[in-house]
C-alpha cells in the first residue's frame, strides 16, 4: 500500500520502554526449545536414521498415503463445518438472551473436558447401525460409524469449542453501532452480515479453523472407536503410527510422524501468514 511507510527490511519489533524484553524473550525461547523443539528434533533424528530410500518407501506406501489422506481430509472437512456452525453458535451466545443460555455456553466446553475415549464411545453408540441415530440413517443408506464420515463427526465434536471460543470474544467486541450504521446506509440484513460482520470476524474464524484443524489432525482417542479403522478406508495416521509402534517398527512410526509434522507445520504456517496479512490490513 502506498500510504504506509515502507518497512525498513526485517527487524525486531522495537521493544517497548518497559524493561523485560530480553529476559522474557530468552525465557520463551528456552522454554519452547525444551518443551517443543527438543522432542521434535528427536523425532526427526530417529526418522533420519532410516535413510532416504527407506523413508521414501514408507512415505509412498499406499497404506501410509491413505491414512494421511484420511487424517488431513477429515480434519479439514470437520474444521470447515465447525467454522460455520461454531460461528453461528458463538453469535447466538453473544447476541441473544434466552433461557438456558448459560447452560449452552457451558456445554460448549464439554468436548474440552471429556476424556476423548468417552466421547468416542458415546458417538459410536449413537451412530452405530443399531444406535439411536444410526438406525435412523441406515434406511437412507447413510453409514456413519466405521466410515470416514464417522471420523468427521467425531472431529466436529472435538473441534467445536476451538471455533466458538476464538470467535466469541471478537463478536462481543463488535459494536452494535457498526450494524446500525450499515442499516442506515441501506444495507439489508444479509449484506450487513456478509460485507460488514463476517469480514471483521475473518481473522478470528481463521484462527478457530487452524485450532480445530490442528486438533483434528492429532486426534486419536475419540476417532479410533467410531472409525472402524479399516486400512485404506478409515484408518487415521496416528493409529497407523501406533500400529507400527506395536510392531516394534520404530523407524516407520517416526517416519509417518515426521511427515505429519511437516504437513501440519506447513498448513499452520500458511494459516499464520494469511492472518498476519489480514491483520496488517485491518490494523
Amino acid at each position, binding site marked *: 500500500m502506498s500510504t*504506509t511507510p515502507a518497512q525498513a527490511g526485517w527487524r525486531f519489533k522495537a521493544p517497548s520502554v518497559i524493561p523485560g524484553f530480553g529476559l522474557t524473550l530468552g525465557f520463551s525461547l528456552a522454554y519452547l526449545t525444551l518443551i517443543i523443539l527438543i522432542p521434535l528434533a528427536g523425532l526427526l533424528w530417529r526418522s533420519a536414521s532410516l535413510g532416504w530410500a527407506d523413508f521414501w518407501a514408507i512415505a509412498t506406501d499406499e497404506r501410509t498415503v491413505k491414512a494421511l489422506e484420511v487424517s488431513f481430509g477429515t480434519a479439514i472437512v470437520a474444521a470447515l463445518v465447525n467454522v460455520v456452525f461454531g460461528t453461528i453458535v458463538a453469535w447466538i451466545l453473544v447476541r441473544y438472551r434466552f433461557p438456558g443460555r448459560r447452560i449452552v455456553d457451558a456445554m460448549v466446553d464439554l468436548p474440552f473436558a471429556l476424556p476423548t475415549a468417552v466421547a468416542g464411545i458415546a458417538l459410536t453408540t449413537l451412530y452405530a447401525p443399531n444406535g439411536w441415530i444410526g438406525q435412523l440413517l441406515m434406511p437412507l443408506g447413510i453409514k456413519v460409524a466405521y466410515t470416514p464420515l464417522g471420523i468427521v463427526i467425531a472431529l466436529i465434536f472435538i473441534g467445536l469449542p476451538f471455533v466458538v471460543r476464538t470467535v466469541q470474544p471478537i463478536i462481543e467486541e463488535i459494536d452494535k453501532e457498526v450494524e446500525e450504521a450499515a442499516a*442506515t446506509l441501506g444495507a439489508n440484513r444479509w449484506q450487513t452480515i456478509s460485507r460488514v460482520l463476517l469480514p*471483521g470476524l475473518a481473522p478470528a474464524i481463521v484462527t478457530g479453523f487452524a485450532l480445530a484443524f490442528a486438533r483434528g489432525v492429532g486426534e486419536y482417542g475419540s476417532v479410533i472407536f467410531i472409525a472402524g479403522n479399516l486400512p485404506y478406508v478409515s484408518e487415521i495416521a496416528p493409529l497407523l503410527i501406533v500400529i507400527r509402534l506395536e510392531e516394534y517398527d520404530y523407524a516407520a512410526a517416526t517416519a509417518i510422524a515426521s511427515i505429519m509434522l511437516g504437513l501440519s507445520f506447513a498448513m499452520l504456517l500458511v494459516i499464520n501468514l494469511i492472518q498476519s496479512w489480514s491483520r496488517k490490513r485491518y490494523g
Partner: protein
Amino acid sequence: MEVRVSNVRKEFATFPALHDVSLDIKSGELIALLGPSGSGKTTLLRLIAGLEEPTRGQIYFGDQDASHRSIQERNVGFVFQHYALFRHMTVADNIGFGLKVRPGATRPSKADIRRRATELLNLVQLPGLENRYPAQLSGGQRQRVALARAMAIEPKVLLLDEPFGALDAQVRRELRRWLREIHEATGHTTVFVTHDQEEALELADRVVVMSQGRIEQVGTADDVYDHPTSPFVYGFIGDSSTLPVKVENGQVWVSDRPIGLPITSGEPDGPATLYFRPHEVDLLDDCGGCIAGTVVASRRVAGTRRVELEIGGGRERVEIELPIEHAATQKSRIAFRPRRWKVFPTA
C-alpha cells in the same frame, strides 16, 4: 426534507426516555438538540433515524408518515458518536458502502462510486486518503469520513450524535466551523446532538433544549439565551444566579422589601425564584429598592471579578460579576439590581 416529530413517547421497558415530544424541523435547517446527559437527545435522534420505534406518536418525513418505515427505507444519514466505521474497509470503501449495497437497478457503476468517494473526501477536506484504513486515521479524520459516508447516500436528513464529543477542544472548534461550511455548501436538513451549549449556540439555526425526556424550549441562540422560558433553560444556558423571592402587588420582594423590579408579564403572586445573569447587573450606591448584600467571597475570573454576596436575613447567596477595578473587599456591602431578569413561580 421537512421532518415532523409528533407527540412521540418512548419507553425502555417501563422507563420513559421521552414524554410526548413534538418538534418541527424545517427543510435545510441546521438544528441542535442540546441537553444534559440522559435527557433523551440520542433517543430522539435514533427515533428519527428509525433505529428505535416510538412507543406512541408519529414521525413524518415531508407529509408521509415514516414511523413504521424501516431504517433502510428512510434514507437518513446517521453519524455515530464513536464513528462506527467499517474497519476492514478502506476509507473509499467505507464512503462507497451505501451506494454499493443498493439494488442493481439504482446502483452506480464501480467507477462512479469511486469518483463520488473522492468528491466527498475533498468536500470533507481529506483529499488523498482513499486507501487508508480507519485504524490509520486520527479521531477528527475518522469523524469526517463518517460524515462523508453518511452524505454519500444523498440522505433526506443528516443526523449527528455528538459528532465532536470524543475530540479534544482544539479539533472541536475547527470541526465546528467546518460543519457549518459543509452545511451551507450542501444544504442538508441536519440535526445534531450535543451537550455543549457553546457548540449548539454557535452552530445551529435553532436550538432544542431538552431535559428529562422533554423539550424545554426551541428557539434561535438569541431566543434561548435572552428569553429562556423555563427555569431549566435559564440555569442550563449561560451562567445564572438565583434568589428566592416573593411576588406581591406587582412587585418582586426580597425578605419584605421590594427590590425595584415591577412585574410586567403577569407572574402570579406567591413565592417565586428570581433568575438573572451575573454579568447583567447595575451597581447602585444607595438602596431604595435593590438587592443588597455583604461580600463573602471574591474571585478573579479572566477579565472580571466574581463576588458572592450574602443577602439579608435568609443568608441566601448570589453571584454577580463586577468590573476588575471594584475592590469588593470582604464584608463590604454591595447593592445592585439585575438589568435583565425573570421570575418563575416556585413549584
